């Protein structure tokens, strides 16, 4: 039944009820006071059913009928006995009052019922939100259910990604015209609920706010629910969203911690498992070397094995360094390192290279210390010296030079100079550097690439340049360790 039909039915019913009481009273010849009580009962029922307006009009009509049909002279609106005016007025006042009282009581009951329903809905929502939220989807379902129970005919839950203008619809019912997005952004920005009439009835936009920050919005379209209930629902959803976010973040952190721990123990295990056999080989080699003392053939073989084992060890060192840097396990720890000490460490690391050819070392008097991670700086140098050794003809010297950077006084330039085949002519730029793809990188291979990334990790760089008179200069530019003013001697 539509609203208008219902109103008409109420009016007709009300008038019919008055007419029925009048007809029954007349036909039965009841005395006026009995009829008065019958009218009062009818008006009470009419008010319960039809509300205040119908009740009041029915009171007036009943008063007129009462006068017309039951007070002498009958069938006129005049009264013979003036005392009856008082009775009639008392009747009118009572019936209007009854009507008002009944309607007020009914309204209160209705409001109480609505509050009860809303409370029930909110309670259900809180249970839903806090029992079943292991995913954002569950949040949306719970919010949607709550909106439905709060009498909303459309709407849903929208969350913000960082800004109210980046919205993620978690759940939505009914159509969603474009302007709704702006309305949602608006309540997100102003952090105030918005309420206005709409084609669906009454639309309410509620920001979800946790700790003063808008995290999303709850939209109830065409709802009769009280603002109080809607705001409570939005607070509950906001808390649940925040809780959800915490759960996700903590799961993420947990996963990160676990993967970090895994990386660490994995690197440790690899380091240990690769190092141990090489250590054993090195030690056994010593006993072989002793036995080979009188046997040239055997001595040469042992020497070759030793050399290859050394190369293997260095490669493993390289790869572990790279893996550690990449896993974030090792941050370069720069400290002042004198270039002479680095060169000396290179000699200790490459005894076979230093035994096979002349290697000269020169450190300029005014060359500052390098400010770099000493083990990484050593690895860079070892790789470059090994490369120089590989491309140089037998017996050709290698030179190691350290000096202050010619252009940038805050840098130290370490150079490895060889007399190998060198770089193809005409590929160097004005500064004598060559692009890696134009040079003999292929020959220099993995070692150069590793040196390059280790240098970058140390805040330095590597360049290759043709050397005057043939060969190649490998340059490592690293930050200089500058002593604080006042500490210089």
């Amino acid at each position, binding site marked *: 039944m539509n609203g208008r039909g219902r109103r008409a039915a109420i009016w007709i019913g009300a008038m019919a009820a008055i007419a029925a009481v009048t007809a029954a009273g007349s036909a039965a010849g009841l005395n006026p006071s009995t009829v008065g009580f019958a009218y009062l009962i009818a008006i009470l029922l009419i008010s319960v059913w039809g509300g205040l307006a119908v009740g009041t009009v029915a009171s007036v009509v009943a008063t007129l009928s009462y006068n017309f049909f039951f007070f002498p002279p009958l069938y006129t609106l005049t009264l013979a006995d003036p005392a009856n005016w008082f009775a009639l007025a008392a009747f009118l006042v009572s019936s209007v009052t009854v009507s008002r009282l009944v309607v007020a009581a009914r309204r209160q009951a209705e409001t109480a019922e609505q509050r009860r329903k809303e409370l029930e809905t909110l309670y259900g929502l809180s249970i839903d939100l806090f029992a079943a939220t292991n995913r954002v989807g569950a949040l949306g379902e719970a919010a949607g259910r709550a909106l439905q129970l709060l009498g909303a005919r459309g709407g849903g839950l929208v969350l913000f990604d960082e800004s109210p203008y980046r919205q993620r619809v978690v759940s939505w019912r009914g159509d969603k015209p474009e302007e709704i997005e702006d309305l949602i952004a608006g309540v997100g920005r102003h952090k105030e609920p918005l309420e206005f009439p709409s084609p669906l009835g009454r639309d309410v936009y509620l920001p979800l706010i946790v700790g003063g920050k808008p995290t999303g919005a709850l939209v109830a379209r065409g709802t009769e629910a009280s603002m109080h209930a809607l705001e409570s629902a939005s607070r509950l959803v906001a808390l649940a969203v925040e809780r959800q976010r915490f759960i996700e973040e903590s799961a993420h952190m947990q996963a990160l911690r676990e993967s970090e721990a895994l990386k660490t123990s994995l690197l440790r295990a690899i380091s240990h498992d690769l*190092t141990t056999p090489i250590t*054993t080989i090195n030690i056994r080699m010593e*006993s072989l070397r002793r036995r080979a003392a009188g046997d040239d053939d055997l001595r040469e073989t042992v020497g070759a094995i030793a050399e290859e084992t050394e190369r293997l060890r260095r490669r493993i060192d390289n790869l*572990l360094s790279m893996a550690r840097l990449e896993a974030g396990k090792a941050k370069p720890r720069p400290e002042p390192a004198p270039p002479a000490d680095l060169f000396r460490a290179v000699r200790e690391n490459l005894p076979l290279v230093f035994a096979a050819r002349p290697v000269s070392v020169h450190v300029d008097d005014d060359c500052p210390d390098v400010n770099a991670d000493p*083990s990484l700086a050593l690895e860079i140098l070892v790789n470059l010296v090994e490369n120089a050794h590989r491309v140089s003809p037998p017996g050709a010297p290698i030179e190691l030079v350290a000096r202050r950077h010619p252009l940038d006084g805050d840098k130290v330039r370490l150079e490895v100079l060889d007399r190998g085949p060198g770089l193809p002519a005409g590929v160097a730029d004005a500064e004598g550097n060559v692009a890696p793809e134009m040079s003999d990188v292929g020959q220099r291979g993995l070692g150069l690439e590793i040196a390059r990334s280790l240098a970058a990790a140390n805040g330095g760089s590597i360049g290759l340049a043709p050397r005057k008179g043939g060969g190649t200069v490998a340059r490592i530019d690293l930050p200089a360790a500058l002593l604080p003013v006042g500490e210089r001697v």
Partner: protein
Amino acid sequence: MTVSSLILVVDDDAAIRDSLSKELRAAGYATATASDGREGVTVFESGAPDLVLTDLAMPRSDGFELIAAIRAASRTPIIVLSVRGADADKVRALDLGADDFVTKPFSVPELLARVRAQLRRTTAASSVALEFDGLSIDLERRRVVQGGREVRLTPTEFSLLELLAANAGKPMFIEQIIARIWRDTPSTTADTVRVHMSSLRKKIEPDPSDPRYIITEPWVGYRFIAEPI
């Protein structure tokens, strides 16, 4: 006949333990072995070795526990066999009282040199002069002669040289150096030590490009590397 020094080798890897013992015996030392820290303490107490070589990462009871247990009772030299990339472990072991370390995989001659240095340090009687190849340090008259010519050092430089040379072969923490030489100004920074060390090295090293006496020890401090004669 001289009694050979007894070296205790502690490592959980049997291949390293056995091959290392064999090489040490070939070099003239007597050996004892243990496979973890706890066994190491037992063998240490029953055998009273002259030097201990220990791995750090071992199941059950690790090298740190062993070092702490030995240091609680004795000053026997301890050399740690550390792995590369475990600098924090190395520094912690030195802090606990280890005397030196070698990084796996090490070469046997390198290890033997470290062993000799440690054994010598403990047997060296306190003397009035420290003699090294090409360098002599007269502790009484505070004179230094390098390559036949006298080197003039400032009092601080001489103290630095004396401290390091007396601990030849042993890595010295910068903090230790500050505590010993700058007793009265403990707020001295590592930079101050570096400045004095750099000028000392310039004076005593015949070839600054190829240091023979003092080198920096990454993340620790300095080490005097020449062997006493």
